[in-house]
Structures are given as structure tokens and as C-alpha cells.
């Protein structure tokens, strides 16, 4: 269908300052980044009419750089840029893998990580990885900036800690502690599923696991998405982080499952205990893509695969 475009305005400020000024003067205005979600909603006739502020020319909001021992990603950075970043591949490798599994190349060329966060889909692919990496968001408005932990940003289905006039400016990934995966080791190209450094290299460093389950590798929206990171000390779990997509009204950090595993010897009884807690922590639903029962089973299987690797 052809939407009634005269109900919409799309303005193009020349800079971030102009964009923030426009958003401050029009509290109902909404930011518009790559358009890969909003244009779909527009075409379906579901985009709320009103003023939209186009952002891609805000160069201040792009780029991936080292900052404070971690890495800072501009909110307008595209999936393609994330996918090809050697800095992210060596330090926060799940992000590149998640980006490579989001849509196809044409979507990755336009879609932005900030847009993916602000779209607030519980089925989004990069947010579980961001939760595991303990990301922080820098929010900016005409009044100034503030920082929020990403894990408290999504407050309910499509509800965010984002005020009118505020934009996501940057996504900051703090140092993980422990050692990072060595620069010389990379997941094999095109790997879409579980991967770990070779055994023997695991001691004392965070090992990441990311797996998206959907109907096909490209273009499919997740049925379940799982991101995990584990830091072993001998046969004991020193620390662990687990996050899932598509199993709750928001992307979910499985804090109670983590708590049950932390400090435990990594053996079958510990895995069984974690499995029981994960089931109580998620709240999957039936929808067009899958069923609650299938999603719960797959979430448990992914937890098991992550812990047994």
C-alpha cells in the first residue's frame, strides 16, 4: 500500500547540534537512522504520523574507537562497519558475528546499531551480545549527556529509558577484566554458531559463545538468540554472563542463572541446576515465528551447548 506521506515530515539537519535542537523544539519528533525498520513499518501503514529527524549526516555519532581500556561505538555505526571491525573482532567478537547474521548485506549496509537498540525489538540480534559485554549507553540531548547501563535501558516491551529529545549517541563496551581472546585467534570466517578458542587457551580468559536460531541463516528474525561469556579458574566458574533474545518482552540478561553458576564446579549437576533456573527466568510466547515450547527447549539446549563446549 502507499501510505499517506503528507502526514509525515522527514527533516535533515546538517549536524548533531542541529538535530538535537530540532528534537528539543519538537518534543514529539522521532529520530530516523538507516530506515531499515521504520520504512518497513511505514509501508505497512503502522508508522505514527508526525515529524522525523534524519540522522545519518551526524558524523559525530559514527566510528569505532578505543576508549578507557574498552571500545566505544557510535550509535550510527552500520552493521557492515561492525562486521569488518578488527578491533571488535579481537576484543568483543560476538558483535561482528551478530552483525553478520542481521538481515542480508543490503540491510547491514544501512542498519545501525543505535537504531537496532532504539527499535527495542526483543528479537534483535546484537543486544544479547551487548548485555553480556556489560555495555553502557551514552544518551545525548540539547540539555547534555547522561549514561545508563544497557541492562536497565529496556524497561518493558518497546519501553525504554529514553526521554523525548534524547538520542543514543554511543555504545561503550568496558574492559572485560581477565585476558581478552588473543589477537591471533579468530572465529573461522562465516561461522554462525558456537565457537571457542582451542582448549588449553581457555584458562584465565573470557570465552564467548553466540548462537542465533532462526529459519535460515540470512534474513531470518530469531526464534531464540543466545550470547554467553565464561571465565574459568581451573574447573570452577569464576564468572559467567548470559543473555537471550526472543524469550521475554525485552532482551534478557539471565542474572539468576548466572548467579547459580558463579563459583560452582562446571559439571553436570551444576548444568542441570542452571537449566532449571533458566526455565523459570525466561517467558517465551507463541507467535508467527515460533512457539513458547520450542523457544524454551532451544534456550535450554543453547545453555547446555554453551556450558559443555
Amino acid at each position, binding site marked *: 500500500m502507499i501510505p499517506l506521506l503528507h502526514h*509525515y515530515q*522527514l*527533516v535533515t539537519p546538517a549536524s548533531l547540534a542541529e538535530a538535537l535542537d530540532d528534537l528539543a523544539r519538537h518534543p514529539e519528533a522521532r529520530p530516523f537512522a538507516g*530506515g531499515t525498520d521504520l520504512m*518497513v513499518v*511505514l509501508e505497512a501503514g503502522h508508522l505514527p504520523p508526525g515529524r522525523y529527524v*534524519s540522522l*545519518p549526516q551526524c558524523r559525530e555519532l559514527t566510528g569505532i574507537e578505543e576508549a578507557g581500556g574498552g571500545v566505544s561505538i557510535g550509535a550510527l555505526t552500520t552493521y557492515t562497519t561492525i562486521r569488518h571491525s578488527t578491533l571488535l573482532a579481537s576484543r568483543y567478537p560476538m558483535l561482528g558475528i551478530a552483525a553478520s547474521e542481521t538481515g*542480508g548485506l543490503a*540491510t547491514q549496509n544501512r542498519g545501525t546499531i543505535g537504531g537496532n537498540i532504539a527499535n527495542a525489538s526483543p528479537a534483535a540480534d546484537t543486544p544479547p551480545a551487548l548485555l553480556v559485554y556489560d555495555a553502557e549507553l551514552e544518551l545525548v540531548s540539547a540539555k547534555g549527556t547522561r549514561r545508563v547501563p544497557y541492562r536497565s535501558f529496556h524497561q518493558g516491551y518497546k519501553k525504554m529509558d529514553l526521554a523525548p529529545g534524547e538520542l543514543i549517541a554511543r555504545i561503550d563496551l568496558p574492559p572485560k577484566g581477565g585476558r581478552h581472546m588473543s589477537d591471533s585467534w579468530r572465529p573461522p570466517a562465516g561461522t554462525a554458531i558456537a565457537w571457542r578458542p582451542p582448549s588449553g587457551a581457555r584458562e584465565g580468559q573470557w570465552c564467548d559463545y553466540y548462537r542465533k536460531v532462526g529459519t535460515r541463516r540470512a534474513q531470518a528474525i530469531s526464534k531464540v538468540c543466545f550470547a554467553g561469556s565464561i571465565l574459568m579458574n581451573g574447573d570452577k566458574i569464576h564468572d559467567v554472563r548470559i543473555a537471550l533474545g526472543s524469550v521475554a518482552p525485552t532482551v534478557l540478561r539471565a542474572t539468576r542463572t548466572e548467579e547459580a553458576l558463579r563459583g560452582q564446579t562446571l559439571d553436570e549437576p551444576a548444568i542441570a541446576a542452571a537449566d532449571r533456573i533458566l526455565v523459570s527466568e525466561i517467558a517465551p510466547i507463541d507467535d508467527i515465528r515460533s512457539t513458547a515450547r520450542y523457544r524454551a527447549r532451544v534456550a535450554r539446549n543453547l545453555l547446555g551447548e554453551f556450558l559443555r563446549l
Partner: protein
Amino acid sequence: MPRVTCTVNGLRTVLEGHPMARLLDAIRHSGLTGTKEGCGEGECGACGVLLDGVLVNSCLTPLAHADGASITTIEGVATDATLHTIQQSFLECGGAQCGICTPGMVLAAYELLSRNPDPGEAEIRVALAGNLCRCTGYMRIFTSVLHACRAAGGLG
């Protein structure tokens, strides 16, 4: 009528339309109907064009984002009456059936070969993963792209 100025297939062009109108519609209304609409929601790749050399789905690109850009559509791939190596390969290898997906397939392959003149089949499959063929002629499409790489020793 609002308008944007851009370069389409090397020619300075004025595209008219609402800033939030689909680039797809503006291109087709300008007379370049080689760009196809399939799904209209970024799933099928039939509306693929190059925006400043980068593959995009024109159904998800608002016209405002094309302002000042250089756009290549399927009409800009051939040189005068001479088909591009990729197009010739699609003909020779049976890579086109009903033809609706073909412009998007050719442009996705064109962008791949501009980045990597000698891709393997796995890379071709990744590059074309965002393009659907309702005739399901995928094998011959992949063969066509591989053949084009061999024929041209990369992008001609």
C-alpha cells in the same frame, strides 16, 4: 513537489517526491523500471541498487537519504549495447528465469565483485543471501556469478 539532486548511472538527475518516499518509487517514476519491487520490506533484494557504491534495498531507503548521492541501477551496469560480464554469464548459464529477481541478483553480484574479484562459492552465497528467487533457480545463479569471475578474471 520536494526534490533531491543526485547522480543516477552517471547522469545528474533530479528525483521528485516526499523526503520519506521510497527511493524505489522515485527511481521507477523517473522511467528506470529495471529496479523491481518484490516484497517491499527488505526481505527479497529485488529492489537492490548501489548508493555511493554500496548495495541497499531501495524500498527501505527514503528519498532524502539519496540527496547528493551517486546511484547505480541495473540500467547502469551494461555499457551502451554491451552487457556486463555478469549479465552475459546469467544469460549463458541460465541464471535468469522469470527475471524479477535478476536485477537485484546482478547488482548484489556486481557489488561483491567490486569488493572481491575472486570470491569462492561460499562468499557468493553470503553476498546473495539477501536476494530471493521465487523460481528457486539458486544453483544456476551461483554458477552464473562464478562463471563471471572466471570469464572476466574479476570485475571487467
